[in-house]
């Protein structure tokens, strides 16, 4: 078990470095919002939460993972490549002519289910998928990863009301709660400080967790996945935008700050 936990932590570090390296090569990508969500994706993809088949990404028996915070998911590129969804060499071609890994992931990328990037669409579409899976009597689940800033989009709340009314306990929302939108901390825009109470009062089973403790995230994911209690599930992962990068971590404008190439090189141990 200890080894397993160690492996997950090592994997987080590998993904963190690869994400920095992608941004070093393709500065058009958004770095900070990808750095808050790494542990969440590592837990989902390496922790035995998601059922998937990299050689057949739309395999009917898979769990659906909707990556709604599109531009904040550049860290998914090394994960999907490592798991065999596409050749790892593609990581060299991010934002390059002829490549398919863009600054905002498109649904042509194996492993991506829907259109992301325009925020506030993932949860609603995932809710429709959850209804479809229930109707098919499938035992697959739907996971949706959103940012907290994205929850300002009202369509999310239409889906949140709908999902609890329809008892969609196969629907899992994971909020990368880094508290920062593009221009400021969300507390200075429209606060999400009582998000747990809000989701709970809407009829969701909701848990808060340290989003940078990959083992804690995994434990909650597994516990919730196995809980068929007629309630949709939500995890509020408390995270830091720009995690681990000096000048970026928890900075109000981190979304649009690009760390200097020298800083990235030193963080990657190249200097």
């Amino acid at each position, binding site marked *: 078990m200890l080894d397993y936990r160690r492996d997950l932590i090592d994997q987080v570090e590998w993904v963190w470095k690869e994400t920095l390296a992608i941004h070093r090569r393709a500065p058009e990508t958004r770095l900070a919002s990808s750095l808050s969500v790494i542990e969440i994706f590592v837990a989902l993809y390496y922790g035995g939460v998601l059922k998937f088949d990299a050689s057949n990404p739309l395999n009917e028996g898979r769990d659906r993972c909707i990556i709604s915070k599109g531009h904040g998911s550049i860290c998914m590129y090394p994960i999907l490549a490592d798991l065999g969804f596409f050749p790892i060499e593609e990581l060299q071609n991010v934002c390059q002519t002829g490549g398919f890994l863009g600054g905002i992931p498109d649904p042509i990328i194996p492993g991506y289910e829907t259109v992301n990037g325009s925020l506030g669409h993932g949860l*609603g579409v995932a809710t429709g998928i959850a209804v*479809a899976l229930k109707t098919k009597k499938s035992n697959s689940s739907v996971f949706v990863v959103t940012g907290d800033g994205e929850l300002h989009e009202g369509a999310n709340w239409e889906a949140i009301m709908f999902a609890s009314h329809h008892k969609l306990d196969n629907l899992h929302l994971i909020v990368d709660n880094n508290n920062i939108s593009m221009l400021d901390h969300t507390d200075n825009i429209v606060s999400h400080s009582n998000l747990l109470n809000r989701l709970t009062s809407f009829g969701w089973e909701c848990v808060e967790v340290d989003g940078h403790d990959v083992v804690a995230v995994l434990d909650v994911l597994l516990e919730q996945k196995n809980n068929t209690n007629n309630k949709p599930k939500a995890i509020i992962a408390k995270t830091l935008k720009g995690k681990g990068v000096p000048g970026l971590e928890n900075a109000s404008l981190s979304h649009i700050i690009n760390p200097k190439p020298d800083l990235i090189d030193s963080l990657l141990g190249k200097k």
Partner: protein
Amino acid sequence: MNIEPSAMRDVFLERIWQEMLHNPLIFFVSADFGSPVLDKIRKDFPERFINVGIAEQNLINITAGLAIEGYTVFAYAIAPFITMRCYEQIRVSLALLSEVRSMNVNLIGVGAGYSYVVSGPTHQCYEDITIMRALPNFQVLSPADHITAAGLFDICVSSDGPKYLRFDAQILPVIYEVEPPKISDGFHVHQQGEKVCLIATGFMLHTVFKVADEITKDGHVLGVIDIFNLTNFSTKKLKNTLESYSAIVSCEEGFSGRGGLDAMLFEFIANNNLDVKVLSIGVDPGYSFELGSRMELHEKVGIGTQSILNKVRPFIKTISN
């Protein structure tokens, strides 16, 4: 033969109900909008009927999710709300996503043009042809009677991709009494004219017949065409038909000069190098709060029979000279 007129939505929903009897992959999603036939669907297929409430963004999102999981989905609401309230959901998760994911989605918008006569501009719909035909991968379907609406059901079930159906909210007289139009052509030639042809969609076809009758008394025989598929019609057949005319009059119950039927015909004529002049008849752009019958409102905004005659008669003179 004497066919009793019906509401477009009722005959279309009846076809859906019949299909649901033997096809388990049909879903019906409503944004709290009903009809007597819908009560049958709700009662007989509760597991495949969803009322999302007054929430059109969620209507489209739920529809998209069901569709990429393999269900053929019919989504149902009032026309301006199912198009404009949720336009970005339609763009992102239907038009765009259908580039890479197979889906069969049919948006049924009820209340084309002024058909919600006394409800005012929030419920009336003059922009939908423009904005829906702007979306790649979408078919825009606009029937003029319930026979055509029922015929369009076959396209909806059999062809992949997203579609938008604009239905009149009123019961309109039957046009296709003798036989239904050939749906795959996308348009139907009702009468061959000499130099000028009236081309209408939806409700305006009924007005155009009256206009043609009046002009016949002046000694000119006008052509009359009903176009009910505004995106996927037979371009070859329409080109052949229009080649015999010197001019056309485009007639729509939507804004004139704002990218609707008139723009579609301008583009078609330019792209096919046709030597044909165009007169655009549509609603004078603007929003009106006046009350009156549908025909009274039409005269006020420039698309009533008399308003059209006042524009078409001088237009014909310029063509004849």
